[in-house]
């Protein structure tokens, strides 16, 4: 295939499909109880310099309790799949990020992320490699397919492509230009789901974002869940399982783990808490104070929930669960 254009962005983690196959071959297929605390999961499976991804994102079904634990343990020099809002803000606030593949890091209706600005504009983040959302999800999809790249018609003609590590080639079938995006295999994926059994079979309600793709693109997967259910409940409704247990390395019951974001059909987002973060993130001092109070100042997710307050959390719950 004739390469017409090569993005000048760094290919932070070149995909090694054969090593990934070998890794998956040796991943345990035994049904074992994988329940453990956030602290144990993060200390066992997340290492300095790892390539990390999170799903869904910031204010929606986001694995905040796991991200908070990564911050608490100070895992540093992280390479990050940059699709995020509050969760990546926490990692950026704690200066734990070394390199970014970025599609979107911002605060949605509240505008730009000051933490991203400080880390990038100061040069503390070594490199930002640009992607579109379709390309970003497509990179996980390629890894999930077990292939080195997939073709896409996004990013063509733009600086987003120029500053990515994608390539434009001449399609060998039609001769037209087409963008190839490289597979992205994560060291560790962090996902929050509605329900899982103790082995890690996971079900999600509502939109599924890129959970299925990212789970399959992760060498190690840590899952937090609103509730742990019986294996029987999984086996009676296997059509609802989007992540089978053999992809999962650790699972923990963590209600309100996506707080202050929302969890569809379970609880709405905590607007006051999100605003408190938006305000705190304005300066390094107030950012640090927020981390001190809500992350470093509590031992774990349960203490975090106590700090937020049970009554307040219950007020965020939707009155009726989805049948």
């Amino acid at each position: 295939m004739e390469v017409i254009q090569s993005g000048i962005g760094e290919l932070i983690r070149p995909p090694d499909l054969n090593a990934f196959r070998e890794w998956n071959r040796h991943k345990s297929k035994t049904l074992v109880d994988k329940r453990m605390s956030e602290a144990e999961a993060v200390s066992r499976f997340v290492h300095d310099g790892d390539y990390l991804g999170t799903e869904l994102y910031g204010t929606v079904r986001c694995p905040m309790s796991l991200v908070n634990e990564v911050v608490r343990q100070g895992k540093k020099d992280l390479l990050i799949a940059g699709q995020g809002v509050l969760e990546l803000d926490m990692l950026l606030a704690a200066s734990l990020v070394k390199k970014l593949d970025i599609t979107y890091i911002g605060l949605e209706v509240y505008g730009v992320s000051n933490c991203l600005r400080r880390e990038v504009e100061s040069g503390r983040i070594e490199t930002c490699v640009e992607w579109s959302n379709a390309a970003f999800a497509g990179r996980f999809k390629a890894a999930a397919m077990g292939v080195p790249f997939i073709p896409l018609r996004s990013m063509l003609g733009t600086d987003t492509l120029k500053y990515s590590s994608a390539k434009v080639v001449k399609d060998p079938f039609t001769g037209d230009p087409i963008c190839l995006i490289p597979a992205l295999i994560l060291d560790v994926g962090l996902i929050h789901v509605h329900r899982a059994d103790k082995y890690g079979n996971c079900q999600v309600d509502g939109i599924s974002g890129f959970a299925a793709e990212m789970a399959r693109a992760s060498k190690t997967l840590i899952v937090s869940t609103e509730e742990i259910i019986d294996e029987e409940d999984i086996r009676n409704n296997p059509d609802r399982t989007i992540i089978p247990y053999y992809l999962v390395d650790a699972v923990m019951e963590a209600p309100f783990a996506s707080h202050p974001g929302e969890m569809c059909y379970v609880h709405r987002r905590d607007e006051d808490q999100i605003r408190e973060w938006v305000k705190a993130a304005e300066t390094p001092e107030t950012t640090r104070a927020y981390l001190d109070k809500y992350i470093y100042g509590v031992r774990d997710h349960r203490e975090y929930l106590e700090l937020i307050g049970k009554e307040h959390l219950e007020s965020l719950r939707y009155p009726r669960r989805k049948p």
Partner: protein
Amino acid sequence: MTTDYNPSELLICTAARLMPDNTTAFIGTGIPMLAASLAQKMHAPNLVTVFEFGGTGAIIDELPTAVGGQNTFHRAVAASGICDIMETAHRGFIAYGFLGGAQIDPYGNLNSTVIGDHRHPKVRLPGSGGSNDVGSHCWQTIAIMRHDKRRFMEKIDFITTPGYLSGPGSREAAGLGPGSGPYRVVTNLAVMGYHPQSKRMLLLATQPGVSVAQVLENTGFELLLAEQIEENPPPSQEELRILREEVDRDKLYI
């Protein structure tokens, strides 16, 4: 009920009028959500809203505050995932796409990545997100912007999202689907389209009480003028009532 309105309300009403019934529209955070909701309640009950993380065909009763929030698939016809939505856009199913950005150029290219140099940016912005995909795959895109010289520039710092790139034929040459591209730009001062041949931005209508001279003064490049420049009607009493009492009853945005 007053017929006074603020700039956000004007943008929302102008954008809502551009959303026809029985069509598909890719909706992003903020004004497009309000406009889609208003359009559904006014003239387009079967406007099929499409949200990037998986919501298709939501009835927007309560405003979403995030593109993946529960309200993006409230009473929807499908709740899938980002790959399904992006593939649907790839296949040519999405008629309209709504975009925003920090900067726009005469060909409708948009910047939401950096102000200044990419390696050492003056301001690091959020990045493309779904913007580049919307600009690449939707048949017609509508940009909603605040109108001033710092945003409407001959040359923008970074092309995050493709408009007509460098002019006629350049989208096709880059490999994008023929017949797609920028359609309208809606601002607090005007509504613009694109010249059918040169693909440069063209002033079609001014917002109520705004002069053509004012629009030109606030545009940092040579804006083409349509043969006849209309004046947009102001938001109607009915539009404002629905917007305030139904669409944004919790005053999240307006």
